[in-house]
């Protein structure tokens, strides 16, 4: 076992972990943060995507032991985040989720797209989303939801607000 200290959702956490424990399993089973979903467990499906040190990352192919001193944000910590709030509303309005399994990872990726690529057009949004699989195949609604948020933010910045 290795001792790690990291910041998870604005809380300092010290824990003992086996080096082979995936970050996703650590969060779900030791910290009971079950918002992070586990899908393929080899970095392809994107369900387990969360933020490490401010950037999206796969928590199935990142081991908890490698996150000593890191800052981790899971979907649970975005309740009051203004961008995530507008994304949740847009996902709801555009039917951007069905079973909900991919949704936490989709939202983390969606927020990254909105923050990093404010001028993204639809083909770019689709390309950026290609690392998150939705097996309900609800991509149209998800893309529309992100486009809606991008358009709203673009309009606001054009108005100088």
């Amino acid at each position, binding site marked *: 076992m290795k001792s790690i200290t990291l910041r998870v959702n604005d809380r300092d956490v010290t824990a003992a972990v086996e*080096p082979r424990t995936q970050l996703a399993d650590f969060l779900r089973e030791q910290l009971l943060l079950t918002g992070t979903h586990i899908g393929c467990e080899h*970095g392809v499906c994107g369900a387990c995507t969360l933020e490490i040190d401010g950037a*999206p990352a796969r928590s199935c192919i*990142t*081991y908890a032991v490698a996150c000593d001193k890191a800052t981790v944000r899971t979907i649970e910590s975005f309740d009051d985040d203004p961008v995530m709030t507008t994304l949740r509303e847009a996902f709801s309005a555009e039917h951007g989720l069905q079973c909900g399994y991919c949704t936490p990872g989709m939202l983390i*990726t969606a927020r990254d797209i909105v923050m990093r690529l404010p001028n993204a057009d639809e083909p770019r949004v689709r390309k950026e989303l290609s690392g998150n699989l939705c097996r309900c195949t609800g991509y149209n609604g998800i893309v529309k939801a992100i486009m809606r948020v991008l358009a709203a933010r673009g309009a606001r910045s054009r108005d100088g607000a």
Partner: protein
Amino acid sequence: MKPVAFDYEKPADLASAIAFLRRANGEAKVIAGGQSLGPMLNLRLAQPRLLVDVRGIAALNAVEASPDSTTIGAAVTHAAIEDGRIAGPIGGLLSHVAADIAYRAVRNRGTIGGSLAHADPAADWLTTLLLLDASVLIEGSGGRRTLPAAQLVTGPFQTNLAADEILVAVRIPNLSRAARWGYYKFCRKPGEFAEAIGAVLHDPERGVVRAAIGAIGGAPHIVVSAENLLNGGRTEAALHIVEEAGLAEDAYERQVHFVALQRAVRRLSEWRLK
């Protein structure tokens, strides 16, 4: 889908990382971003006794530009390169290639040196770095050595790195402002490993015309005098290169690499100043 039990060390400097590797006697794996090794560990295709995490080592995170070349630390991430960490014409090429590697969440952690040391024949950096005639800086118990990247990879997922050696950096000859290039990666879904890669580089001020065919089962096929690709008879030249690369037998492989190379040449010939 959970790895076997392994030990983990995260040394702060190169000397202690090498010491861990030496003591592990071939049963350790070096890990940086873990974006290729992680899946292999989870699938138990790799079962090391020890992981040596090299992300914290300063030398592996440095980028240095000299008049002749650019040296990129092995642990520099794809995302940093995509976002323009490498300056100059070479940075433009590298940023273009980086942007189509896997997905942003993977690029945020995956590293250029890790990709090269992993030596997946279908990986973008392997073909790109050989196209650019890069060399690799290696350090181990026996000291430092520099090797042309073309000599590093000996086969699919195989390199001649010794068990106690670490790939520290890649060094790429700079491109002149007149350099033009075309890179075409064929895959069925964005972000996948390539089915085929075609790449061509023309740097008239340095007298360089190189081409590469990647994702061919082993190290990419490199052509060091690819002038024929840019002059008359391009189709025949491209076909000849694909056959030289050992792809004549399989109709699909031959066609998909032929088309990738032709499209790379077309991108070069339609070059606009960016």
